[in-house]
């Protein structure tokens, strides 16, 4: 699979470092718009093409590309996604544009392998949706789920800051659509402490009467292992707990709640380890790209 990353900022550059290690993805270019960006300089040093003509370059070179990873902005993605699809290029969208189906690798990796465009939700969505899904599958119905994501101020870029509502809305939707909760809420907090804190995520879930608590905890542990296969720094900060209520949630009164306290340490590929929020996005996008590539290969082999 011949791939290009578009967007030479933090996310795009971190993804480039990861993709250089891939056996199935053949990265040919990091595409930017600023010729002086650090990302493009690094791409050049790695022997990749490093053009600065943005989406135009992708469209001009479409016949030599199978897949792009879009790490620009929702605005840029929305303007170009139809052109990418028309040119036969599969797009893995790391912006919050949400034009294609949402993919959380540990939950629905194999459901959208043929889609021309898939969306990677948000960093907090990648971290918490698997936990919501894990709890959901262990009980009859999950009336309400909530996530709180705290990231170091230094790792929250201007895009997130100017449109924080987009983060909370998209994440909350993923907790319902992919996690399986009936009602949901997402909260984002920025913490400026020095040295910067690791990305923290907390999942709260309403646990109805008669649920099997041991099964919930076991399902959570299993899912943490699943996510950490593609995000090595993903872990439980404390063992998950079931607390006694009652709790008057938007999904009704429940006797208990599950609390899952997570930490995401980045791999330190381009950004420091505290930026687990960026790492989980790039790691998840890589996983999706590799799965799409493998599925194509298998199809070609059997054709």
């Amino acid at each position, binding site marked *: 699979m011949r791939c290009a990353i578009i967007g030479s900022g933090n996310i795009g550059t971190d993804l480039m470092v990861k993709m250089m290690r891939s056996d199935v993805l053949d990265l040919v270019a990091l595409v930017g718009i600023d010729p002086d960006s650090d990302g493009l300089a690094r791409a050049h040093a790695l022997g990749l093409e490093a053009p600065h003509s943005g989406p135009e370059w992708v469209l001009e070179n479409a016949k030599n590309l199978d897949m792009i990873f879009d790490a620009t902005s929702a605005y840029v993605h929305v303007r170009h996604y139809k052109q990418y699809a028309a040119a036969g290029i599969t797009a893995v969208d790391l912006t919050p544009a949400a034009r294609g189906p949402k993919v959380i690798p540990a939950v629905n990796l194999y459901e959208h392998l043929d889609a021309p465009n898939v969306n990677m939700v948000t960093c907090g969505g990648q971290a918490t949706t698997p936990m919501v899904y894990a709890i959901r599958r262990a009980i009859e119905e999950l009336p309400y789920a*909530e996530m*709180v994501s*705290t990231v170091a*101020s230094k790792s929250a870029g*201007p895009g997130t*800051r*100017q*449109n*924080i*509502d987009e*983060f*909370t*809305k998209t994440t909350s939707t993923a907790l319902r659509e992919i996690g399986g909760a009936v009602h949901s*809420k997402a*909260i*984002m*907090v*920025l*913490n*400026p*402490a020095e040295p910067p*804190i690791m990305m*923290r995520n*907390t999942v*709260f879930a309403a646990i109805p009467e008669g649920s099997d608590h041991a099964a919930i905890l076991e399902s959570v542990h299993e899912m943490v292992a699943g996510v950490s296969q593609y995000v090595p720094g993903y872990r439980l*900060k*404390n*063992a998950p*707990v079931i*607390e*006694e209520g009652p*709790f*008057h*949630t*938007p999904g009704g009164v429940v006797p208990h*709640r599950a*609390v899952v*306290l997570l930490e995401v340490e980045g791999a330190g590929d381009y950004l420091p380890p505290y930026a687990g929020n960026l790492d989980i996005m790039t790691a998840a996008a890589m996983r999706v790209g590799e799965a799409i590539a493998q599925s194509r290969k298998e199809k070609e082999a059997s054709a």
Partner: protein
Amino acid sequence: MTTTTPTTDFRLIDSTLRDGSHAISHQYDTKDVIAIVKGLDRAGVQVIEIAHGDGLGGSSFNYGFSKVDEKELIAQACDATTNAKIACLLLPGIGLADDLRDVHELGVGMARIATHCTEADISEQHIKTSKALGMETIGFMMMAHMNSPEGLVEEALKMQSYGADAIYFADSAGAMTTEDVRRRVNALVNALEIPIGVHAHNNLSMAVANSIAAYEEGARNLDGTSAGLGAGAGNCPTEILAAVSDKYGITTGVDVLALMDVAEEVVRPLMPRQQVIDRAGLILGYAGVYGSFLLHSQRAAERYNVSQADILLELGRRKVVGGQEDMIIDVALELAKKHAEAGK
């Protein structure tokens, strides 16, 4: 634009129905809201703030669920007021711009957009939305003891550039001395073109003194809550601030005795506990921890059989900010684990 009427020296904003909500774990009923709004309005309070304690959209596992939907309560408040303007608070990351549209429809005339004191740039979307709706809009910087006067000015200038009509800083941890307040107000008054306000907490027993000092340095908006009802050891008590202002010859435009009546006859009977500065409250101010962590940390301490003081001190060491209530559980679990290991 001016934010005080010509007849008063500063504008009093009462937050009993917002910050006070923390102290009663967000259990306000419609009849409480109507009684408080009517009482404050009759006493001449110019602005009454109402929302979940953590602002619009705060009802959650993390911050506590509201007994009655805040928008229902806000609608009741808008109906019950005659002269006072109804205000809401919103923290970007918790509430949405859509919430501002909803409450504007209900008759809310002021929105205060609150961020941690180093993160003003996340308020741009919401300040602009509020301004576009035609609401008076205040940029509100929380946990202001965690930023220097110069740092606060830098953040306040951002909020001013987004269109804020006034800037507040909140001593959310009740951790400031009078000198801390003076230096911050002075820096802001000198650097900004718009009025300054201060929201004080009483964890170090400084709330009224700090509010008066803020006025002396040029703050022209001051917050209070009836009977001091609020996060931590409580807020600056509205009726005491008004009484002390009278003594100083500062014109508030409010009827001090009528405010005392509201505090005594309407608010105190609602209070599950009086606002005293007990050990936990004092530790909040001493360690610089967000006031609304008080009741959450008490519950976690009981649940996991650990010391509330230890939880609060550790949260202070970790430099957690407002909104990170989930870290209370994190710290409680770690303390419980340590105790279990020590007991082996």
